[in-house]
């Protein structure tokens, strides 16, 4: 078992604090969830080693939600970056979005990486060797710029390659701590980078943030149908969960050969790509970002692609997307009009 470097000294691993009881065994099939009203009382609970613990645990609303709301009260805009599919560029897009917002020194940006099993944000931002410090008011995010703080489980691992072999409840506990115990401070934007799928992490972040108000989700996809298939499910999830979809971003769309400038479709949009999906689902299409090998290299070395290649077509595409996104959350389209930003 990996022992996390948790800034609070006493605990081995962060346990879900508050309402969730500590379980002695993995949950059985059809477990109602240790936090539910039926915990310990359902048919499925018979014979479960946790039954007594669940049945006697204090019930009622999650006591941590008001604490999360207090933390989030100073965050103006909360954006989720989602995709049903893995490896489509959620973290890359989050990173670039964060850098783009943070270009204006007056804008405070936070990035919360809730991909517990595959955290990529620290490396992409060149901060993988940092660790988290705590103060009296909570855990401090790792700052990669004066106005850009990030939080990820990667900062808590004793070794970079350690695997986090956790089932749902432990992941939920840590996500809760990222919201409740991290001293985010006054933020204009909190970007939340998620793992692929529609499971524990997604349900939890939604339920924890519901009371604080999430602006919405940006859904990232690649053009081919195999990816759209999963992304369609993610949008269905957003509908069910009541999360507003701010728009679809199509990543890796088209590749221009650096040698002959001939264009190829690496991930063929046989069914019309992100644009067709957006029309089908009735949500805005924010734009497309072409494949550029330099993006991947910039991510590997933790550099800002924006600063390095401001003239590239990929940057242009991104700036358009950001403009559209700012419109969706009710902000003026350009960074330059910082003074106009009454939210900050």
């Amino acid at each position, binding site marked *: 078992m990996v022992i996390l470097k948790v800034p609070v000294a006493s605990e081995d691993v962060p346990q879900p604090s508050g309402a969730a009881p500590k379980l002695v065994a993995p949950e059985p099939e059809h477990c109602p969830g240790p936090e539910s009203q039926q915990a310990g009382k359902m048919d499925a609970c018979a014979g479960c080693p946790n039954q007594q613990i669940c049945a006697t645990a204090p019930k009622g609303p999650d006591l941590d939600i008001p604490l999360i709301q207090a933390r989030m009260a100073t965050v103006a805009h909360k954006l989720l970056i989602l995709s049903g599919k*893995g490896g489509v560029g959620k973290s890359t897009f989050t990173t670039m979005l964060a850098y783009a917002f943070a270009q204006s020194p007056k804008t405070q940006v936070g990035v919360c990486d809730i991909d517990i099993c595959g955290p990529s944000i620290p490396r992409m931002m060149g901060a993988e060797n940092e660790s988290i410090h705590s103060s009296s008011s909570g855990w401090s995010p790792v700052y990669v710029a004066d106005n850009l703080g990030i939080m990820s489980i990667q900062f808590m691992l004793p070794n970079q390659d350690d695997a986090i072999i*956790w089932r749902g409840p432990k992941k939920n506990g840590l996500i809760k701590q990222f919201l409740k115990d991290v001293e985010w401070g006054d933020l204009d934007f909190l970007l939340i980078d998620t793992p692929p799928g529609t499971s*524990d992490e997604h349900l939890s972040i939604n339920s924890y943030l519901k009371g604080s108000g999430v602006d919405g989700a940006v859904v990232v996809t690649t053009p081919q149908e195999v990816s759209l298939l999963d992304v369609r*499910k993610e949008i269905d999830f957003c509908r069910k969960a009541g999360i507003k979809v701010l728009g679809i971003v199509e990543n890796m769309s088209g590749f221009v050969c650096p040698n002959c400038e001939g264009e190829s479709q690496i991930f063929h949009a046989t069914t019309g790509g992100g644009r067709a999906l957006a029309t089908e689902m009735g949500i805005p299409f924010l734009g497309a970002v072409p494949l550029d090998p330099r993006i991947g290299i910039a991510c590997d070395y933790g550099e800002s692609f924006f600063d390095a290649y401001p003239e590239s077509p990929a940057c242009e595409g991104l700036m358009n997307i950001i403009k559209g996104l700012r419109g969706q959350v009710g902000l003026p389209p350009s960074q330059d009009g910082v003074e106009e930003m009454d939210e900050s």
Partner: protein
Amino acid sequence: MLENVKHVVLVLSGKGGVGKSSVSVQLALTLARAGKKVGVLDIDLTGPNIPRMFNVEEEKVHQAPGGWIPVKVGDLGSAGDGVGSIECMSLGFLLRDRGDSVVWRGPKKTAMVRQFLTDVLWGDVDYLLVDTPPGTSDEHISLAEQLRSVSPDGAIVVTTPQAISTADVCKELNFCKKVGLDILGVIENMSGFVCPHCSTCTNIFSSGGGAVMAEQFGVDFFGAVPIDPAFNLMLERQKETTDEVGLLQRYGESKLFPVFEGITEKLLAKTEKAVANGSGNGEGG
């Protein structure tokens, strides 16, 4: 229900979108061309892709006394001499609509994985390939626990070359070590792209990362697979093509087929040897 399955091979990766499913599909096709009977079990519950890739999205799973009957991939071409078969099972077959989301927490996923491993009537299968979701969480823990009794041959770990990807995949290798799963080999996918206009190879996601990672961990490197948009198109256009040429034959003409022939040879050498040595299912590695 895995009594009649000779070899169980997991296809894993810590990272999403690196091509686990497309590697599983190609391994299945190559093994079938080599005359093996192949089963493909897709335990990516929230993002099942296998049905789409085999063009069996419309199929449904049938219940028989004793369990579920897996879906046969029909359009393999003339079942001539020495051609095997492919059957698959996925949560995709159980959904009412292909756009429906499966919003499940861990315990339900665990139960489903268990059911997939116990209730599917695989019959005589030479190789059961298990396609997994990214990560090291509920599905993977359940899979490792459930498979312990049948001692699987091991895992094939897929990565793309860039450091962002290998960083996550290293975690998966550590997971395998921790749960005692043999790593059969590493495949580097999306390794280089040959421009169709000028034939220059561009390393879109850099290159060589998979081989370096394999060396670091002291595991075998099975090979590097280039990006070939034609393969994806071939899978996507199965529905439109009406000629008699089956998927197996068409894959035989793919540029990727020779690459996977090499990979499959290594896989066969490793897994069949274990049996020949009489060391049972994969214990000798």
